[in-house]
């Protein structure tokens, strides 16, 4: 178990390293120049040269990369081109907003999805199963930005149940502000998870240990909820772990439409303005987020599945 964790951690670091390096090189290959964007049409050549030098952009790429990693080892992600603030501060200021959004979305979509899927699997081919399938499936491809906007129109403007923009202050207010964005980006996950749970439940329900449990007269409820669901949930955990990466992408849309602060928006803004330090900082953090969440999923799987614990 420990060596498994160490190896997993080592692999995570390696992925992080490769991913960040690739992104570093890729973003540099892209046309565009933060100095030009920052200075706008008013740039004089001297000024441009000065700023380029100040930002270290006149160095060869490999040297910049080395410097980046050197700083990184000291826990320094560099300084924002535009505001002169520490990138670490900026990224970690935005991170909680995105995290709370992602967690809220996963929480509601996974709970509903698992419940729907488990119910459907326990009552296969009934009308409710079919209806649940049709409804949940049709949400799978509902683009987050359209859902977000419609949710805004209906629940914020028309019904005025929830606030429209921002992230709020204080626990309840923030929760209040989370409802619509989390709804918008979680919606497509409900169907996805429900389908996954249903399929994996049906498989588990066909296994002979479930038959054993039934043959011992254990209540059907307990058979479904404990004996089958605990196993059926395992692939879902993995999918959610991987899904964090995709949710970060969906968060971008929610953050734009709900004018929320967050990492997704930061990423987009920094890439379009070629704000290299922030791009690298946010790539690092979001990749780390992904790596951590997949590792976490593996860990949870190991906790839920004793076989995985000893297998490694």
């Amino acid at each position, binding site marked *: 178990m420990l060596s498994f964790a160490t190896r997993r951690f080592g692999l995570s670091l390696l992925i992080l390293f490769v991913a960040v390096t690739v992104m570093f090189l890729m973003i540099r290959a*892209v*046309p*565009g*120049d933060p100095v*030009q*964007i*920052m*200075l*706008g*049409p*008013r*740039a*004089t*050549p*001297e*000024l441009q040269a*000065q*700023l380029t030098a*100040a930002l270290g952009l006149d160095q060869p790429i490999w040297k910049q990369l080395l410097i980046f990693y050197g700083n990184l080892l000291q826990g320094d992600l560099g300084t*924002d081109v*535009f*505001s*002169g*603030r520490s990138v670490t501060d*900026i990224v970690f*200021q*935005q991170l909680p*907003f995105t995290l709370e959004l992602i967690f809220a979305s996963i929480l509601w979509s996974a709970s509903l999805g698992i419940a729907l899927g488990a119910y459907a699997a326990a009552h296969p081919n009934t009308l409710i199963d079919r209806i649940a399938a049709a409804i949940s499936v049709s949400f799978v491809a509902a683009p987050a930005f359209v859902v977000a*906007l419609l949710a*805004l*129109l209906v629940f*914020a*403007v*028309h*019904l*005025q*149940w*929830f*606030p*429209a*923009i*921002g*992230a709020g202050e204080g626990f309840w207010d923030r929760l209040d502000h989370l409802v619509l964005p989390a709804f918008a980006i979680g919606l497509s996950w409900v169907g996805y998870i429900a389908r996954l749970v249903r399929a994996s439940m049906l498989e588990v329900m066909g296994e002979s240990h479930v038959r054993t449990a039934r043959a011992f007269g254990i209540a059907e409820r307990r058979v479904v909820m404990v004996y089958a669901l605990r196993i059926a949930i395992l692939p879902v955990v993995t999918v959610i772990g991987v899904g964090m990466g995709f949710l970060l992408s969906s968060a971008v849309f929610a*953050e*734009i*439409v*709900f*004018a*929320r*602060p*967050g990492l997704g*928006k*930061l990423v987009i803004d920094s*890439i*379009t*303005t*070629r704000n290299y330090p922030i791009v690298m900082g946010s790539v690092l953090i979001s990749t780390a987020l992904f790596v951590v969440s997949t590792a976490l999923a593996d860990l949870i799987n190991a906790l839920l599945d004793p076989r995985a614990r000893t297998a490694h």
Partner: protein
Amino acid sequence: MKIEWTKANVGRRGFLKGATALGAATALPMGWANRAFAADDGVLRVRAYGDAQNMDPAHSVGVVEEEVHASIYNKLIQYKPGEEWGWQMDAATMIEQVDPTHIKFALRDDIGFTNGFGAMTAEDVKFSMERIVDDATDSPNKPDLGPFSHVDVTSEREGTIVLNKPFAPIWSIALPYITGNIVSKAAVEAAGGRIGADPVAESGPYLRDSWSPKEKTVLKRNPDWKGDAPSWDTVEIYPIDDENTAEIAFEAGELDVTRVSLGSVERYRAGVPNGGSLVEKPSLYYVWMGMNVEHPKLQNQKLRQAIQHAVDVPSILEAAYFGAAEAATGIIAPGLAGHRASSLVPPAANFEKAAQLLAESGETNVTLTLDTLNKTTFTTTAQIIQATLAQIGITVEVNVLESGAFWASGDNENLQLVLNRFSMTPDPYYATSWFTPEQIGKWNWERFNSPEFNEIHESAAAETDIAKRAEMYQRAQDLMEESGAYRFITHEATPVIHSARVIPALRPDGLSLLRYFGKAT
């Protein structure tokens, strides 16, 4: 079919309350989001396009930051809200141009800096302006000060601004805009010469209370401010770049003021929700289609002229600007010196003439690329250009670019047609500066190379006779258009909606001057 998103009578709170009190009627005015309007909480909520990240005027990157700077710092003079461009006194009690290169000023004696940095002095004025032109500061705003030389301090609160040569934009750009902000010399020096994300000392009617990046900036009334007290205790500035979101936030009662999209103008003309009003302002932006005269495919002037005539501006205004904007006659907006009453090539396309010019050019099978930003307005415009040019047999492929790549087009020699939009300050000097030969490879994407234009740009800035100056700029725009490298499209428009409780103070181009916002009673 038109869906009216009228507000429902029962809000969430009302719902809960109604359920307990059994009296739905009593719950009516208790709508959740109505609190913004119902409670006069003294908070003005405005929208900005972006986040004000830097509190150093020397490193301000434009209007978004200036909106905050103008509230927390003072300038000698400020823009006047209203329909016409003009300025009013702010920190200055007296200011006058004694000769074309000298401006004398005297400061008010009741302005002080926060954080214990004392009263504002002429030394602060000198410091603030000189540090912008100082190379060590790396200020992107240096060009705004033009031929500014230095400030002579004559007494504690008096001084003279000295220019190297006459510079008309000093009154319209330099002093009332970004470079005019006065910071505390002592505070900046104490901070090591650079102000970062937090102001080191403020002096304006508002103080920046807090900043939550990408969420909001909060301004609070400055208790020590001795000038005319601002009407609002608190101003919250929300960075929202998506127009739809801003409009919805306004309708949900969470914003008091926002610029709206041109597509929504028609709807708001019919009525603004919650008793608000629509204010339609012109804009200083200029949008044009440029042609890279150095590109092998576009070196033929007749071809360029054919293209000029084949672009149908009214269609663009109709489809991309929803009929809410007027055709541009050049790069200088109406209301500014140098604005042309009409362009040489009429806005409406003349396909006959275009075809004739194309025939004269001798070019056949012309296929071109048109680069544009990835915003709906531009892609719509580009598609119309594509369709209209197709009518004279020119094939256009639209290249949609994200902003980072688009704005790097300056050194792109392969650029052919480009749909572009520049911002502007209220002085023609600002507009012409990008099209000089010196700017080729940087911002003169058309690689328009006219010595005469350059000459006009240089001399007009120093010309103090307004009529003469206007004439010079008009000639400059004629030159641009004659070259065939430009097809002017529009100056856009600035429709702004505001809630009933606000009396907005907007520049003639629709931008907010927060410190002058009033309260409707």
